[in-house]
């Protein structure tokens, strides 16, 4: 029987909001202390109002050694907080977790890289930061450099590297960590496609080699290919702890529920504090019938995004995903064309026209990302869902629901008579 690698029991973490939330000035703290003392002397038992946010509440689970577990959930569901607790960065407020074995965390690749140090020096520093012994780094040094494929730049300060090179080197170090427990947070979102594939293979290798892996990602395809089991978190609590297919289905259903909510008041957005403009509504219309949320495949379609505020330099990015949460395509206004129109009269409304929607029948999801003033203003997963009805493309009927793949291409055949 496999031994337990991680056991969590009633794990909780709260953050105090309001009073000195992030950091106050000393003056505030002193005057606050003074006010409280005076209050106490005057006999008023007045307590300062402290707003407590439970990022994680009463979470219990057990993970066996060698298991690969996916951690899924909306933004703000508590996934990152969980990793922070398990990697000892933050201390739980309640409950406990028992962790057996060395923990390696890839919470953000490249943390601890120092721009002034050379690649070689950073490999040693970063390895130590990730918990590797010096002898280990030395013995794997060549492997690491080969994996990152950058022998030539080893003695160049990292500040002269491109961001892609930095990520490659950082991941190479992390990938050779060989911890008993590996915590991974979205690292695969970086690097080019070839490197991502390489990284994924490496991670699967680590999992196969008997390490316990806890993997946090929005990419359900990756989760499904790497993990047997997944834990779905919602508002800081475990809602599903099941085989990965079941948990992913639960998550997709939760996403769909969220899409039917009032978008403006959803809290699971890509949290940026400078949200000067938010997505208010996202609707999909059939280009011909004008009907909402149902589009006939092969016909035109229109995506309409309503925002709360018009900002200078607004850009919008729509990602269309299939029913399993695999991204199919991204429409990005930043990759502009001469056919695009910017109209100061159009109000807080962004429209995207697709000439012919080449999707096979089925249900699709849209994620939206809003930029303005050169910052990300807002991001929402599952901002809307729409159904594609069977249609024709260039007069040719489409495959039925359940066919392989998601897209249809206009095409012609030449066959023997």
């Amino acid at each position, binding site marked *: 029987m496999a031994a337990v690698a991680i056991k969590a029991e009633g794990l909780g973490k709260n953050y105090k909001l309001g009073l000195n939330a992030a950091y106050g*000035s000393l003056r505030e*703290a002193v005057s606050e202390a003074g006010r409280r003392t005076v209050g106490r002397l005057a006999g008023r038992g007045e307590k300062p109002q402290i707003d407590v946010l439970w990022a994680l509440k009463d979470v219990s689970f057990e993970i066996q050694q060698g298991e690969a577990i996916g951690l899924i959930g909306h933004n703000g569901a508590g996934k990152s907080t969980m990793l922070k607790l398990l990697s*000892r960065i933050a201390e739980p407020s309640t409950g406990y977790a028992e962790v057996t074995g060395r923990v390696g965390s890839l919470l953000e690749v490249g943390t601890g890289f120092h721009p002034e140090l050379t690649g070689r*020096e950073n490999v040693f520093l970063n390895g130590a930061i990730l918990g590797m012994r010096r002898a280990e*780094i030395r013995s794997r040094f060549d492997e690491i450099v080969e994996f990152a494929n950058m022998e030539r730049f080893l003695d160049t300060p990292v500040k002269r590297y491109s961001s892609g090179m930095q990520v490659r080197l950082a991941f190479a170090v992390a990938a050779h960590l060989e911890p008993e427990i590996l915590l991974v947070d979205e690292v695969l979102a970086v690097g080019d496609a070839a490197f991502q594939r390489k990284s994924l293979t490496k991670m699967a290798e680590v999992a196969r080699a008997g390490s316990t892996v806890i993997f946090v990602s929005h990419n359900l395809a990756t989760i499904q290919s790497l993990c047997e089991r997944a834990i779905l978190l919602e508002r800081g609590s475990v809602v599903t702890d099941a085989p990965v297919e079941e948990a992913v289905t639960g998550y997709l259903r939760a996403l769909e529920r969220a899409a039917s909510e009032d978008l403006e008041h959803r809290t699971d957005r890509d949290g940026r504090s400078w949200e000067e403009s938010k997505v208010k509504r996202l609707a999909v219309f059939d280009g011909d019938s004008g009907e909402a949320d149902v589009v006939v495949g092969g016909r035109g379609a229109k995506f309409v995004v309503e925002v709360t505020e018009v900002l200078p330099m607004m850009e919008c990015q729509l990602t269309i995903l299939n029913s399993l949460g695999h991204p199919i395509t991204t429409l990005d206004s930043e990759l502009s064309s001469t056919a695009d129109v910017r109209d100061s009269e159009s109000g807080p409304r962004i429209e995207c026209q697709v000439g012919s929607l080449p999707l096979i029948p089925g249900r699709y999801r849209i994620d939206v990302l809003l930029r303005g003033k050169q910052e990300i203003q807002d991001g929402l997963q599952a901002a809307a869902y729409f159904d594609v009805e069977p249609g024709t493309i260039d007069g040719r009927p489409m495959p039925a629901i359940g066919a392989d793949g998601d897209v249809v291409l206009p095409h012609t055949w030449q066959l023997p008579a």
Partner: protein
Amino acid sequence: MPTQSALQPTAAAETANAPAPETIRLQATSGFGRVLDPKELWRFRDLAFQIAARDVTIRYRQTAFGAAWAILQPLAFMAIFTLIFGRLAGIEAPDGLPYALFALVGLVPWMFFANSFLLGSESLVMNQALISKIYFPRIFIPAGVVAAGCVDFTISLLIMLTIVLIAGFVPPLAILALPLLIAIAIMTALGAAAGLSAVNVRYRDVRYVVPFATQLWFFITPIVYPNVNIDEPLRTLTAINPMVGVVEGFRWAVLGAGSAPWDLIGISFASACVLLFIGLSYFDRVERSFADLI
């Protein structure tokens, strides 16, 4: 580049042995004992070394003068102070010492302390990304700054001793007391840097207080003036400032100035211990909340 290889491992062979996995219980803690948990510090010893090596390496990277800055700073101050306090203000060094040497020998330990204090108190905030992403004993951050300062300190000490010899002063036997005095300076620097860096996580006011406090501290330490003019018992009491014992001790140990100031050194040693204890205790108490607050 002489510092280039500072981050590479030394030749010391070390076996990568895999001990049986240990179970660690993570839960809310209270009270003391995390910073000074020797087991924990030992487990992360390689990281401690790498952080110190990083701090040494980056200190003078892409500088034209490199590690020469370690001595250029005290030498420049010595020249200025000799001109202003020695010549213009007419302050005289005791026992007929040349004012320039008198000032230099005081300045070398002072510069070590002042730089460690200034950089150390900012260190946690500067390493924000690391602290919010990775676990390790946080004390390594301010301690790394102090350790890097020790490298500078060693360089400037050696050059100071050379200058003293060239000037015709043969250090007396009392020079054997130097390690003790250096230890007091390190304890003072570490205590002050660790404590203030922890306060800085919560209250960024520290950024404004420390430069100002350092200047004030400079003037209550007899660096540009001799403290023989101060009446007893006030003179002995000033040694509550640990740098008083260090600076006066340095002059006695290196230049043979006056009689052994054991009273000052004793008091300074005691107060350096207290400062170190307070600094580390506070650090220890708030360490667990760094990631939440920084």
